[in-house]
């Protein structure tokens, strides 16, 4: 039986259990409420319908592209009239249009995101002032989650529907057009920036020409001045419509045009004028790209800058993919992470290029940092252990080490390739390609991994006419030719005193002497050695360069260089006996972004049960406290027994035990004490201190959960989310291969799970073999594992006590969870993805196959999402709990995809590299700043394998990683308790990293974090709302009575504390560092203004009086 069949069989087994549990009638529905979908077509049907559409999609898919299917389906839905040959009524046509656009949009968004459900409010057929009928598409706020392209296509689908229904185009009048212009400006000034800010002319042009009315629900409480237009229902901003126009139709004009042409939809040619605008991402010149400091525009307190843009000593660009990289996750040496402390596995960084952000994963086959210790010695840090040992002696981080960037990242971001760092895997290929190389005469494999001595390095270079080995190539390009000559003169001067002017001879002598190395007095020239990256030790007032490095240095820089007319590297090459490559031609800037995360999801406050108790449970919403009142009055569902007609609020009649039907909801007196007592009896639990409920239900029907579920959740210390599922959230990281021992799984267990061979095709026997992960298997964090154990206990208790079935999981240890099915679900989406636990990581993240993350529409630049136990979701999830408000269906498992088809997931994942090494030609192309799309013939990636068996296996990596969770598991940001300490740490780190300007960081934190925060909060303080401590009612302005209408006390929503929270630390920073006077004065001014707001002139006087 194949992998997918095994998963399916297990899944169906759980569905059967859930079915028999639900058939007992304790829940509102008698069956599990998550339909199973094998593929996109079934997901679409499950998510938006209509019934039977899945079959039609599959039928069409065999002949035409997915986009064409979407449009075809839309047309079929609206043109299929209820009565053959007779037009439907207006209402029916509106309903069908509504269905059509949702279905088509769901097909285009892979049936995962919530946009087709929540992004479109409705479709309406309205009339022009010339009395013709046209179609209006009403967008809602959540269209944002679909992305610009989908929003634009929704408009195009709307037009297609309009044409299919033979309706007229929308003819806007001037006031309506100007309304859009105003709204765009207002949205940007009052709500948030658009990804693309269209000029007023562009908006006018778009509105005039889009053949349907793009309108929508009000999204923000901001009124426009073009009010009370006859055809526009709201005077507030229509955020969804603006997104669809600006970030959709206008920003994605070329794409929309392409589709319109392909589908032969007329009337979109005008978009041509938008698409002429140059693509801001395209670097037209072939010269090195300019400094890009976008990632540094906001420097946040406690999140250190790791490297300035292109700064020497920053991260060195190295191409390749380790088994835990890709989808925006990039490798950094664990010793770098250890030394900077602010990077852990899964920490997000905002980076200079190729994209905007990444997630840090450990990779120990790349170069680590070079650091200067307090005693002055310079050390290349090569292992995590070494890093741990020396990290407190580090005075300066001269070089941060490599950042391993998969080729696919450049492809994904359509960023021109940048020159690659000189590395051993490149060097080896130059030998293989050289004319004098024959297979037999060198052991290439060992050359790449083993250390070779300096003498051999030179010999190889001479023999095969290849550049010098990367270990012996220093960062010559980081110093000037003058520096080089100074260094040479210095060494000459020192060595001549020992009467031996021939440096080459000296080098031979030192080398032959063995141990000693090259001894030089400590002098300013030491800095040049440091910048070049040449390690040296300190002995008294002497520095010692090892004999290997001494040999290389004296042989390379054997005489002074020409200082005129060439760069340093060229100058060095003119004197060196062998070719010297640029060690680090591309440095990447970065700063720390969001920290890694792995934590159970808790609402605030976190309930054990979705059971409303009003304010009766006190601040902690404790159902037990509420029950002490006996009978309470709450807003809750009303149900009526189908047999005896008795009213209740449960799915089973409390009198005769028959099923009930919900009738309405409203204020009702319930005897909570009784209910709770019964529930205790039902589940055989005697007493619990606290079971937390909710104040009120936010769902339409206000149907409560059975109290039994709350008791059992409280007993097992787990919490429910708004949809009655239990979630655990983690940062996403990719994983294509694992080592059984590192994820805590035995070969035996792996065999049971259907794994057979390791990457070399050998049978799995040894826990240290490397195994390719199956695409729906996930490695969750240990913390997640522990929580899921408690969830499994809850589910077992539930099965046994409430539903009267056998316990299912029977889990004792984490290992027992291996093989269990889970659901992965991302925010803003509505389709869960089936997964299977295969092991555990110590890191605070969820490692899974890139396809798994992509199927949830996530990448790995610090996106986090949730995992649920499948049986918990099947038993407890119900649509009846979902909020009735807009967006309520997001982040809920409305459908479950049981099988991942790489062709049907986000095409981001198609850029994953699958190469055992980066080919020599590709390295050479990077030096020419080629576009990644122009070198695809050199690359093996997922895209190439789509549709074949190879899409599931053989996605090999180029760089090994000995452990996917080496390096720190928690970054310093999270362990330091106060902002002051975080900022102190950040600034101390800035002082230590060569590629960072400490003063700049202090100023950056003040300018982009603390000052705006204080200014914003003190402004907000003087126009704030107040809130009731008891009932939570908010007032725009405090009532004249000073109290809430419920009689309770009111409190400020912005306290003095939040206004002044960064004042002391800002003042402190301004005193300790020589920052710009401008900033110092801004801090002073803010202090003056804060004091004026919070200190009474009276108290100042009276304190003076004391002295007088």
């Amino acid at each position, binding site marked *: 039986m194949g992998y997918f069949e095994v998963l399916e069989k297990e899944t169906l087994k759980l569905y059967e259990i859930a079915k028999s549990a639900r058939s007992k009638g304790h829940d509102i529905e008698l069956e599990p409420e998550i339909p199973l979908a094998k593929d996109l077509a079934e997901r679409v049907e499950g998510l938006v319908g209509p019934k039977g559409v899945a079959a039609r999609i599959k039928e069409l898919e065999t002949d035409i592209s997915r986009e064409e299917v979407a449009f075809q389906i839309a047309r079929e839905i609206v043109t299929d009239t209820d009565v053959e040959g007779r037009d439907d009524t207006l209402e029916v046509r509106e309903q069908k249009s509504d269905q059509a656009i949702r279905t088509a949009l769901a097909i285009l968004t892979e049936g995962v995101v919530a946009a087709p459900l929540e992004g479109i409010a409705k479709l309406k057929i309205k009339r022009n002032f010339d009395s013709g009928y046209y179609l209006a598409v009403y967008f809602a706020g959540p269209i944002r989650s679909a992305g610009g392209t989908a929003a634009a296509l929704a408009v195009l689908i709307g037009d297609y529907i309009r044409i299919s229904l033979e309706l007229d185009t929308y003819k806007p009048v001037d006031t309506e057009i100007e309304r859009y212009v105003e709204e765009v400006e207002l949205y940007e000034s009052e709500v948030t920036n658009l990804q693309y800010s269209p000029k007023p002319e562009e908006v006018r042009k778009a509105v005039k020409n889009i053949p349907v009315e793009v309108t929508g629900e009000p999204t923000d409480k901001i009124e426009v001045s073009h009010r009370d237009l006859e055809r526009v229902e709201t005077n507030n901003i229509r955020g969804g419509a603006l997104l669809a126009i600006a970030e959709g139709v206008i920003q994605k004009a070329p794409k929309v045009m392409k589709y319109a042409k392909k589908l032969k939809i007329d009337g979109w040619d005008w978009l041509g004028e938008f698409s002429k605008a140059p693509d801001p991402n395209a670097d037209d010149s072939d010269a090195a790209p300019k400094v890009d400091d976008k990632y540094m525009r906001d420097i946040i307190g406690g999140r250190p800058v790791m490297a300035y843009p292109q700064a020497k000593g920053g991260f060195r660009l190295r191409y390749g993919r380790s088994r835990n990289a890709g989808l925006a996750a990039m490798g950094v040496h664990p010793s770098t992470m250890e030394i900077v402390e602010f990077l852990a596995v899964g920490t997000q960084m905002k980076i200079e290029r190729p994209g905007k952000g990444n997630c840090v994963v450990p990779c120990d086959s790349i170069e680590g940092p070079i650091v200067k210790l307090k005693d002055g010695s310079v050390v290349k840090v090569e292992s995590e252990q070494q890093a741990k040992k020396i990290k407190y002696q580090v005075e300066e981080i001269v070089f941060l080490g490599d950042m391993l960037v998969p080729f696919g990242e450049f492809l994904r971001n359509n960023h021109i390739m940048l020159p690659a760092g000189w590395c051993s895997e490149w060097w080896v290929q130059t030998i293989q390609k050289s004319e004098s190389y024959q297979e037999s005469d060198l052991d290439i494999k060992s050359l790449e991994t083993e250390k070779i001595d300096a003498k051999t390095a030179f010999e190889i270079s001479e023999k095969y006419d290849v550049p010098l080995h990367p270990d012996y190539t220093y960062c010559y390009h980081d110093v000037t030719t003058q520096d080089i000559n100074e260094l040479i003169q210095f060494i000459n001067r020192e060595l001549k005193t020992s009467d031996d002017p021939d440096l080459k001879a000296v080098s031979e002598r030192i080398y032959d002497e063995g141990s000693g190395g090259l001894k030089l007095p400590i002098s300013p020239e030491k800095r040049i050695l440091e910048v070049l990256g040449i390690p040296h030790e300190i002995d008294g007032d002497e520095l010692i360069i090892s004999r290997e490095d001494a040999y290389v240095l004296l042989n390379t820089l054997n005489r002074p260089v020409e200082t005129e007319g060439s760069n340093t590297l060229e100058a060095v090459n003119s004197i060196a006996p062998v070719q010297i490559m640029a060690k680090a031609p591309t440095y990447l800037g970065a700063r720390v972004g969001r920290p890694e995360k792995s934590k159970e999801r808790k609402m605030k406050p976190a309930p054990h049960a979705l059971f409303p108790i009003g304010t009766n449970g006190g601040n902690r919403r404790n159902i037990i406290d509420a029950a002490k009142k006996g009978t309470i009055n709450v807003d809750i569902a009303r149900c009526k027994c189908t047999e005896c007609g008795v009213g209740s609020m449960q799915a089973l009649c409390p009198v005769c035990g028959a099923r009930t039907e919900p009738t309405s909801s409203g204020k009702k007196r319930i005897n909570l004490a009784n209910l709770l007592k019964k529930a205790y009896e039902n589940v055989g639990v005697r007493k619990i201190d606290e079971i937390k409920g909710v104040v009120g239900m936010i769902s339409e029907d206000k149907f409560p959960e059975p109290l039994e579920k709350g008791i059992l959740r409280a007993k097992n210390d787990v919490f429910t989310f708004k949809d009655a599922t239990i979630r655990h959230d983690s940062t996403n990281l990719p994983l294509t291969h694992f080592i059984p021992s590192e994820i805590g799984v035995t070969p035996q267990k792996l065999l049971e799970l259907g794994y057979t061979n390791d990457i070399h095709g050998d049978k799995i026997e040894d826990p240290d073999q490397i195994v390719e992960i199956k695409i729906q298997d996930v490695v969750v964090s240990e913390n997640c594992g522990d929580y899921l154990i408690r969830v499994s206990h809850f589910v077992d208790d539930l099965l046994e006590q409430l539903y009267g079935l056998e316990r299912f999981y029977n889990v004792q240890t984490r290992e027992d969870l291996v093989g269990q099915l889970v659901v992965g679900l991302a925010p803003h989406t509505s389709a869960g993805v089936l997964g299977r636990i295969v092991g555990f990581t110590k890191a605070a993240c969820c490692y899974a196959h890139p396809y798994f993350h992509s199927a949830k529409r996530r990448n790995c630049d610090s996106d986090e999402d949730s995992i649920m136990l499948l049986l918990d979701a099947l038993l407890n999830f119900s649509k009846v709990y979902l909020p009735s408000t807009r967006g309520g269906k997001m982040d809920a498992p409305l459908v479950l995809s049981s099988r991942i088809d790489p062709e049907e997931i986000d095409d981001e994942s198609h850029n994953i590299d699958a190469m055992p090494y980066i080919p020599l030609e590709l390295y050479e192309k990077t030096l020419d700043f080629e576009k990644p799309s122009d070198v695809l013939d050199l690359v093996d990636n997922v895209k190439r394998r789509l549709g074949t068996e190879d899409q599931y296996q053989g996605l090999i990596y180029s760089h090994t990683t000995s452990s996917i969770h080496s390096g720190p598991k928690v970054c310093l940001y999270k362990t330091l308790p106060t902002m002051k300490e975080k900022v102190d740490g950040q600034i101390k780190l800035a002082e230590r990293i060569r590629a960072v300007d400490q003063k700049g960081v202090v100023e950056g934190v003040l300018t982009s974090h603390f000052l705006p925060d204080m200014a914003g909060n003190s402004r907000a303080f003087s126009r704030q709302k107040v809130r009731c401590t008891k009932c939570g009612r908010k007032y725009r302005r*405090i009532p004249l009575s000073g109290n809430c209408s419920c009689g309770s006390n009111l409190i400020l929503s912005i306290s003095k504390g939040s206004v002044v929270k960064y004042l002391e630390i800002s003042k402190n920073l301004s005193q300790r560092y020589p920052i710009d006077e401008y900033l110092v004065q801004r801090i002073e*001014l*803010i202090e003056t203004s804060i004091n*004026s*707001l*919070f200190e009474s002139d009276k108290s100042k006087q009276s304190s003076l009086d004391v002295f007088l």
Partner: protein
Amino acid sequence: MKEDILLKFTNAELLIDDSAYEKIIQQENSVQVADSLIKDISSSNKDFFVLTESVVDNFLQQYLSNYQAPESKLKSDLETNYETQNETVKMPQSKLMDIPLDFHVLKDASKKSYTNGEIKDFTAYFNSRFQKLKAMLTKKPGLRESAPIKEAGNRDGVVNVVGMVNDIRNTKNNHKIMEIEDETGEMTVLIHNENHSLFEQAESIVKDEVIGVIGSKKGTLVIASELIHPSVPRIEEKTMDFSAVFISDIHIGSSTFQEEAFNNFVNWLNGDFGDETQQDIANDVRYLVVAGDVVDGIGIYPHQEEELTIKNIYEQYEEAARLLGQIDNVKMIIAPGNHDACRLAEPQPAIPENYAEDLYKLKNAEFVSNPSLVSLDGFKTLIYHGRSFDDLAMTINGLSHQTSDLIMKELIEKRHLAPIYGERTPLASEYEDHLVIEEIPDIFHTGHVHINAYKKHKGIHMINSGTFQSQTEFQKIYNIMPTCGEVPVLNRGALKVLKFT
């Protein structure tokens, strides 16, 4: 009948003193006399008036003679009489004459900030606003019998209340729903769109102003029949025998500060710039009022440093002292704006001395809060920078930054300088609401919008004094054209605008 006559004058917004009133009611056909007197006054375009006995006498003479002999020309005599009076008032060069200044600060909020930023301060602040404005409203006919909202809500029939507006919005059927409250409770008021004049009046109602409502109860709603603003009566015009100059928004330190225009202005004040008429005016100037934004400040908006020539707040004020220090023989009254080195929350205390030492050394400079009320030789001048214009322009249909005169008229009628809470204008939760317009000024001077405006409303000179800053990047984006270097001068009661660019 007596009430009828009084009401007629009240409705015409004319004040009448006792002796004049006595005179009128002594007339045989007093009602007709009153009518025709009101008609005469309103058609004669003289917006000054407290009706005194002598005016009534004059009128009666004319009225009776008209009655008896229609060819009489007494009416025109009356007018010429006034003109000649004006002529005789004109005196040469008041500044050069050695008349001592009669300057007083009538109201100033500096060093009276008693708030600790606690929630009780917020309660106190809004209650102070409510009580002050309620006191004004309950003196008005129609509201003298007003009841607390809670009480009125429990009664049937006619409702007569004073409340602070919580919310006002349009309903689906395009009526207006207004929620008001006082310290006893809340009330929902419906303004029906078929009551056209009332509905139109309600268009300018904003949140947090205090308003009187007369109406009738219908279920839980009150259907409004009359909405009453605190408003001001028409004031009597005083004779002004000097000139005062009004400026604001100088923005010293900004790269768009027009130093040349400002120097021309200073030279003009000192008698060294402009043609003869202009110099004549200059010689007549006794006061210079600055309504905020003396300097451009620092850190006011993101990336401001890129648009500053002086990036140091102390140096900005030093430069201000250097420029203003050249002005001789004119009293300067300086209030802060949102760019000055003050707290943003209003009322803003005067510019602190430690930031503007050199300015404080100027002997002829006086520093007041924003807002403040000063007396310039008996002319009560209300100075307010104008931050609240941003909110009113956004909220009331038809108002914009270009028409700050209309905004000022709204503020005067509402008797509050910054009624809307919670939007752009930060309000400090002081025990006392200093932004209530308690005393009716003769002159109301504002700035902030960088565009000149002038209007005479019920006898009050309302002046917005423009700017000395040319168009900024921000204004370019929003297509705002500032009136740069155009200075309003109140020249013996007449407004003149002098250009210095």
